[in-house]
């Protein structure tokens, strides 16, 4: 079954073609980062307008890359939520219109299910069951994944998502938008011993996260440095390093705890922050000690992309599931999902 995947939940237009026999055939992405940079964040109306302009040319591009015609498609999967309602609407409407014209099934896919299945596109794919750490600008969640659509939320952030905290700290450090990766790059030059930031909510049982306090702690540290006239390039890098170390440590403490409590030996890490090099390196060492193993998507599938939607959709479409109505779901808890056929 050849499935076209469409992702338009935020500021990336992603399209891909996945074949349940041959694997990923093509994928293309248009990032709106430059469009939103001058506003210091995603402007929903501009994001929606850009999806309308970019989506069909990207569909043409993946079909050309795969040397296929649109009539060769067997189904279409699109991100139905969660995400920005106007942005979701573009992908949902276009997908339904196309599917109607081609007379093929169409399915609205959960964006986070796409992320947590993204490592399945790699050569060394994890087997079910596993624990997933979904960590991005919008989410920080630990999920017990027993099978497709069989998800139990173990814990999540009670305030900011980890990626959101990265972006906000980037603003404090006066780094350009989007700041997360810039903080990580700056932290490379930072020294880990100069500051030690708190590891929020690790001193008590449970698998929830909180990054809001860490953000405030970072701001306070920066203010003190400025007051003492001690803020320079090295101090900026040291703060970035202390912040990154605290986030990475916190995530790892909770991941280890989740693996121990659930008895799983496989951990999937997905979402934009899963591209963070220090997180991957430190996590790999920590999991080896536990006799467990981490699985990641390739770099470009850590952030939003069409491939993960094509893949996740294909798993459900091949089981006979499809959408009858066109209705985006900007708020859609992952735990509401069920396996296909249930």
């Amino acid at each position, binding site marked *: 079954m050849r499935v076209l995947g469409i992702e338009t939940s935020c500021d990336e237009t992603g399209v891909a073609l996945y074949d349940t026999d041959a694997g990923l055939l093509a994928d293309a992405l248009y990032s709106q980062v430059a469009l939103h940079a001058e*506003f210091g964040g995603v*402007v929903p109306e501009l994001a929606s307008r850009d999806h*309308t302009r970019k989506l069909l040319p990207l569909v043409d591009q993946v079909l050309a890359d795969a040397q296929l015609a649109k009539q060769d498609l067997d189904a279409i999967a699109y991100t139905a939520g969660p995400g920005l309602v106007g942005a979701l*609407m573009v992908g949902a*409407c276009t997908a*339904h219109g196309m599917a109607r014209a081609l007379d093929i099934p169409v399915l609205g896919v959960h964006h986070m299910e796409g992320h947590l299945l993204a490592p399945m596109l790699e050569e060394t794919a994890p087997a079910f069951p596993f624990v997933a750490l979904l960590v991005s600008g919008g989410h920080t969640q630990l999920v017990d994944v027993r099978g497709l659509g069989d998800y139990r939320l173990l814990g999540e952030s009670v305030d900011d998502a980890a990626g959101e905290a990265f972006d906000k700290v980037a603003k404090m450090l006066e780094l350009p938008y989007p700041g997360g990766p810039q903080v990580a790059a700056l932290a490379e030059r930072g020294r880990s011993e100069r500051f030690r930031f708190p590891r929020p909510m690790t001193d008590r049982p449970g698998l929830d996260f909180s990054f809001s306090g860490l953000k405030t702690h970072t701001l306070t540290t920066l203010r003190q440095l400025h007051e003492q006239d001690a803020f320079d390039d090295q101090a900026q890098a040291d703060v970035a390093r202390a912040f990154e170390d605290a986030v990475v440590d916190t995530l790892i403490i909770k991941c280890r705890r989740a693996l121990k409590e659930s008895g799983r030996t496989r951990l999937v890490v997905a979402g934009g922050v899963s591209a963070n090099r220090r997180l991957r390196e430190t996590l790999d060492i920590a999991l080896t000690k536990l006799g467990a193993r981490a699985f990641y998507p390739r770099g470009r599938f850590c952030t939003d992309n069409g491939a993960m939607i094509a893949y996740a959709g294909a798993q459900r479409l091949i089981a006979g599931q499809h959408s009858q109505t066109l209705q985006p779901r900007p708020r859609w808890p992952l735990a509401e999902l069920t396996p296909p056929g249930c």
Partner: protein
Amino acid sequence: MPTLLALDASSTACSCALIRNRQIVQRFEIAPREHTRLLLPMIDEVLAEVGVSLTQLDAVVYGHGPGSFTGLRIAAGIAQGLAYGADLPLIGVSTLEALALAAHRKWHARHVIAALDARMEEIYVGAYHCHDGALSVALDPRVLPPSRLRLPDTDRDIEWLGIGSGWQLLSNIPVDVQAALPQTLPDELPAAEDLVRLAATSWERGARGSAPHEVIPVYLRDEVAWRKA
């Protein structure tokens, strides 16, 4: 005469119409926030009623604006998807022209100012001369505060008909404009049957639409984000 399917979701109403052999079939419903749910079944219904399939169409048409930003993108997305999937050209038609044509057809107006409430104390507005089912533009579509509306620079003795939700803001309109407008129809909403008529008329004059991805909404208001100081 072409066979065309038109969609509109630009206002609180959504509608779908099909023209074939000059006969028009339409579904029209006032249903705020229900457009995504209603449009696809409406398309199925009009196709079934006329007994044509998408592949028998000459083109797909949609109300490209102005109007509700989200509504414009709902119609654009579905219309682009349909046209792309069925290898058909796509035609965008102005919602202001659709209103002007409705005023001409139903109230026999010769000179129409179509106006839509654009929120933020502004209106989308355009003016048209109508003759024998055809329109000519007297004032290009634009967005402005009602107080800045001026009559098109034509014969001063013309009586205009006002149509569209923008006329609910009548009290903010300059008195000379009000004086030239003995009648307004503020409750009329754009309808797909007028879009499809306008597209069919242009088709007969040789207009053939464009590739689906090229036919994007015409928002008129493009200042939608503000740079940080």
